[in-house]
């Protein structure tokens, strides 16, 4: 009975892009900026990460390419919302439209026609390999632990480090200050503009890595509509997590668990008659329900959506 082991393993795998995205979006929103460019940033990270890996033959260079794209996407969002003070909703949606358009255009130029371009995906890390027969407890633990390196990095390095930086370091304090009360932060000598740019660029890099995980590790290729709304799910997870990293990650795990359960039930006896689409829609409905139940009077960052200008 490997049913639960399968679902737990798939949950961590499917949660990984959401975890990177949630960390990234939490940083930008804590600095006072709703970045709806996340869907496009993840998309561009997925594509340009893949394209770099394809041309260099090295998925880790692909990851670097995705990070660069994410930093640039964050900077562009900063130009619009921090420097120019444009409306954040519109700037973010515009950024998403541009980045998806650019990725699909570049995809067409680089990979048009012929067979599907593939790379050797990042290998799985199997620390408990050989712990027993697949059906035994040891074998099931081994299959749960058999994950991509980026998944381990997400949960064991990025999440704790991102929390520590945000809550325990001067940089994190500055990010929270400019998101809560930029006037006071300015008086205290914090460069509001610079900190917001930094938060947007850190956030953008994490979002892009989340997207790149899908092409570089999970699939080893790029397909259209590859992000499929994961960025929008992250926007919900950040609210569900009340702008706290660990709560947001918990939300990502819950979402991924429901999603993975739905996928697994499709090939489970007795559940074939439930339309596939219902299973796929379930996670979204659950997120909306979770927001309806817990999203009331949530403590939005004080300067959320508000551009800052020195007068």
């Amino acid at each position, binding site marked *: 009975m490997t049913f639960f082991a399968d679902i737990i393993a798939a949950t961590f795998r499917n949660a990984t892009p959401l975890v990177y995205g949630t960390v990234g979006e939490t940083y930008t929103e804590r600095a006072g900026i709703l970045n709806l460019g996340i869907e496009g940033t993840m998309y561009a990270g997925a594509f340009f990460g893949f394209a770099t890996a394809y041309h260099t033959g090295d998925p880790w260079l692909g990851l670097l390419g995705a990070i660069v794209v994410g930093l640039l996407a964050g900077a562009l969002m900063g130009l619009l919302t921090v420097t120019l003070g444009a409306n954040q909703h519109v700037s973010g949606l515009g950024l998403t439209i541009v980045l998806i358009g650019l990725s699909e255009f570049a995809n067409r130029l680089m990979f048009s026609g012929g067979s599907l371009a593939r790379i050797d995906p990042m290998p799985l890390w199997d620390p408990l390999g050989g712990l027993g027969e697949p059906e035994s407890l040891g074998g099931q633990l081994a299959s749960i632990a058999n994950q991509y390196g980026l998944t381990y990095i997400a949960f064991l390095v990025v999440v704790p480090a991102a929390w520590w930086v945000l809550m325990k370091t001067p940089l994190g304090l500055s990010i929270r200050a400019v998101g809560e009360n930029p006037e006071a932060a300015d008086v205290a000598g914090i460069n509001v503009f610079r900190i917001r740019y930094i938060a947007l660029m850190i956030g953008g890099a994490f979002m892009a890595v989340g997207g790149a995980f899908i092409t570089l590790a999970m699939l080893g290729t790029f397909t259209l509509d590859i992000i499929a709304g994961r960025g929008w799910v992250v926007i919900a997870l950040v609210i569900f997590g009340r702008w706290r990293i660990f709560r947001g990650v918990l939300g990502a795990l819950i979402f991924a668990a429901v999603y993975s359960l739905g996928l697994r039930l499709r090939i489970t006896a007795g559940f074939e008659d439930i339309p596939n689409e219902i299973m796929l*829609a379930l996670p979204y409905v659950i997120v909306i329900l979770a927001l309806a139940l817990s999203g009331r009077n949530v403590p939005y960052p004080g300067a959320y959506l508000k551009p800052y200008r020195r007068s």
Partner: protein
Amino acid sequence: MAENRLGRAGIVAVGAIVTILAVTGGAFVIAGANPLDAYYAYFIAPLTREFTLLEVLNKATPILFTGAAVAIAFRAGYWNIGVEGQLLMGAVAAAGIGQVVEGWPPLLVLPVMIGAGALAGAAWALVPALLRVRLGIDEVVTTLLLNPVALLLVQALLHGPWKDPETGFPESPRIAEAAEFPPLADFIPLIGRSRLHLGFVIAIVLIIIAWYVLSRTGTGLRVRAVGLSPHGARFAGIRVERTLLRVALVSGAIAGVAGVSEVAGIQFRLTEGVSPGFGYTGIVVAMLGGLTMPGVLVAGLLLGDLSVGASSAVRSLQIPSQLGDVVQGTLLLVVIGAVAIYRWRTSREDERPPDEGEPPPDEPPGPPSETSPT
């Protein structure tokens, strides 16, 4: 001061045009085309022949609907990003009714179908709107997340009960002839061979009505007041929640009619690809149009032009059609930036700090809203 403003607007506009030309021109060069040829193919060529000109109007039809739907909602500060899903629900309603009205008189069928589509779109918009005004749940997230749910619902129908029994394709059976929007060529002898249909006329009429209501009536004034400053509107005695709820439903209803128009005027059946992102393009149209109805009309026609140009340039200049989306996105980002610069410079000149609305003591439920004009 007025001359100065005009000068500023001129400088910003020139800067915006230069930026757009630089970015899109670079993209054309990368795609291996002469930028001048490409601009001609994208924007001018579609207007030079009757057939392609009518096709521009045809391509503009769905995004005129969705652009108007988005603009009305955004104008009130209600961030309805679920127009895509609301459109799909309208399409489902149209396909459902279209299958069962064989032999009915068209004069009865068409209003019923349009009404049902509007209801379906409004119904899909209702849940996020109620969550927003009753519980203060951010509508950005809920409207967005219902888009994939709507698409999955369409797919469930097409792979399940509505699968075409003859072909086995995931397409609903063809709708009855009485349910088809007549082509305009049937009424206007000047119009030659074209798919342009009744939906275009409905879109124009809707935009005129919306323009009148928004800019000439008390209702419109309240909508705009809520969008400019919910706090101020509340002080002025406007029932903000009720206004937001109504705006959300109207926006969803217009999106639903867009779905009816695509099913009844173009596809004649429900397909998975009934909307290639018309709801999202509607956001672009609304923003480029400055959230005004005349602006939506111009921007919708412009993007219709661009859409026809981009697809014909695939053949004539071997430019990938995806470049059309890049041009569209660049237009949007540059316009957003230019408007922000213009507002900022202008307000500085007036010695009026831009974003210092006095926060009133009673915070309304819901996510924080910008009190500055967008």
